[in-house]
């Protein structure tokens, strides 16, 4: 599969990093049935924004990230990246599964992107060490991915993505398989990284709580075929407090939205 680069460039706005215009995508399964994964997606994401996507399973969230990454192409509509975001160099993707290369030790996994750019061995191992320290994995440079716990693996995957210094970071349920306390630690870490690095993040999650803790905006998807039910902006100060009334209200509101689509 070739990585397709969306030719459309956004002109006229230097605020928008990524934009979906009337995007639709469907699949034909091997048995021949047609599945509409996404319909009528219109979405503009600003530079530096942290956008979370929630929705029922199978509603097309992964598909949307794949389109943004250029791994997949839309059936209709167009996806455009800002001029200053090179689709090959500036977009990193933390996948839902198999987030690390199993044949490389942790430090080489993190250094992989830099190696592809021809950075010298010494420099990239140094950089990888720094990043591992930032994500709390100091001392695990020489470990193999299979020797890490689930939470450590996700930390390593984040370090691996950050190594190429992305302007746009796509994350597909990165904390989905973790227990709640590890999950909260990683949420805090990611929030801090976003604050310090000013990158644009598109983050898929099943947890409405997580979406509200992290996002500037929560995009709520309908059940399949995925359409945008609501583009919910969050104006709560950070760090977000779960005990806050406003937080709880918004949580219940989104729960309600999603419940309505489950008849």
């Amino acid at each position, binding site marked *: *599969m070739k*990585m397709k680069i969306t030719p459309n460039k956004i002109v006229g706005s230097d605020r928008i990093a990524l934009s979906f215009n009337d995007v639709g995508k469907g699949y034909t399964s091997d048995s021949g049935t047609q599945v509409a994964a996404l319909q009528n997606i219109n979405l503009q994401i600003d530079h530096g924004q942290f956008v979370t996507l929630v929705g029922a399973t199978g509603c097309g969230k992964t598909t949307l990230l794949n389109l943004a*990454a250029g*791994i997949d192409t839309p059936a209709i509509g167009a996806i455009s990246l800002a001029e200053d975001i090179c689709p*090959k*160099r500036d*977009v*990193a*993707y933390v*996948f839902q*599964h*198999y*987030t*690390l*290369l*199993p*044949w*490389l030790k942790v430090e080489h996994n993190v250094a*992989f*992107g830099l*190696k*592809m*750019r021809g950075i010298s061995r010494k420099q990239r191992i140094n950089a990888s060490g720094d990043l591992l320290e930032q994500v709390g994995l100091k001392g695990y440079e020489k470990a*193999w*991915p*299979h020797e*890490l716990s689930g939470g450590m*693996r996700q930390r390593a995957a984040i370090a*691996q*993505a950050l*190594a*190429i210094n992305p302007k746009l970071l796509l994350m597909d349920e990165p904390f989905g398989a973790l227990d709640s306390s590890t999950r909260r630690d990683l949420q805090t870490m990611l929030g801090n990284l976003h604050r310090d690095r000013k990158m644009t993040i598109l983050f898929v999650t099943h947890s409405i709580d997580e979406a509200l803790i992290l996002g500037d905006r929560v995009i709520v998807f309908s059940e399949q075929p995925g359409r945008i039910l609501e583009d919910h902006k969050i104006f709560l100060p950070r760090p977000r407090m779960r005990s806050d009334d406003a937080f709880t209200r918004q949580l219940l509101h989104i729960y309600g939205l999603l419940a309505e689509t489950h008849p």
Partner: protein
Amino acid sequence: MHYLRNNKHYLHGLMRRMGWTAIPLLLLIIWQVSAMRLGKPWLFPTVTRVLVQLVHPLRDHYASGSLLSNALISIFRVVIGFVTASLAGIILGILMGSVRWLRSLLEPMVEIIRPLSPIAWLPFAIAVFKLNTLSHLFGLDYSRTILDQVQLGMLFVIFVGGFFPILINTIDGVAGVRQNYILLGRSLGANSAQIFIHVYLPAALPMILTGLRHALARCWMVIIAAEMMAGIDSGIGYLLVYAADNAAMDLVIAIMVIIGTIGAGLSYFIRWIMRPFIRWHGQEV
């Protein structure tokens, strides 16, 4: 229940130790006694006569060199043929495994040629390459080195013997690489050549290794048979038929032991070399 399982374990351990000691020893004793009773060493030599041959690996036989020198010549031939087959098989295998149209284009031909026994190629190869050696490749008739002993025809059949197992396993290994790893590589900025080297190759390495092991075992079988062909005057397979023609059955059996041991040694060696590279296998997370 517990008692039963322990008993079973104990029994298994005992059998394993016996398999390595008592059974071989018993067979050797039966061999020795019956050979002594038969008294026809040119037909069925005693264990001791075979051992005498084995502990004199440097003794010259029929002015054709010693056990050791002929074994080394055979190993050298196999190594050269095997290494070229590996390079060609792995490179073409990765290409065919990752580029679908190339696979469709070449696979029918591979499937037609592959079942043909490598040995069946030998008369053809000798006719084409005559008895030219590696030295001729470098423009010399004789280099007075081991290169004089490496006939191109023989290399060709070893190549054929090793190439197909490596090719097939590499194709399967590469075609089975998780799409995720390729996407991950691409998202981290790897171009096609880098994906080839840094994703397909390592991800398919466990399968490639399986191919290499099969291939090396096959090459070793092929060389013995190839060296038995007319016109060849060196190598352990040559010495084997020469000894048989001279009714030196003790030498024949000694050579059989050597061939078996080298075969096992090669297989172990390649596993040992490759083990660090595939330690991750089966641990994907």
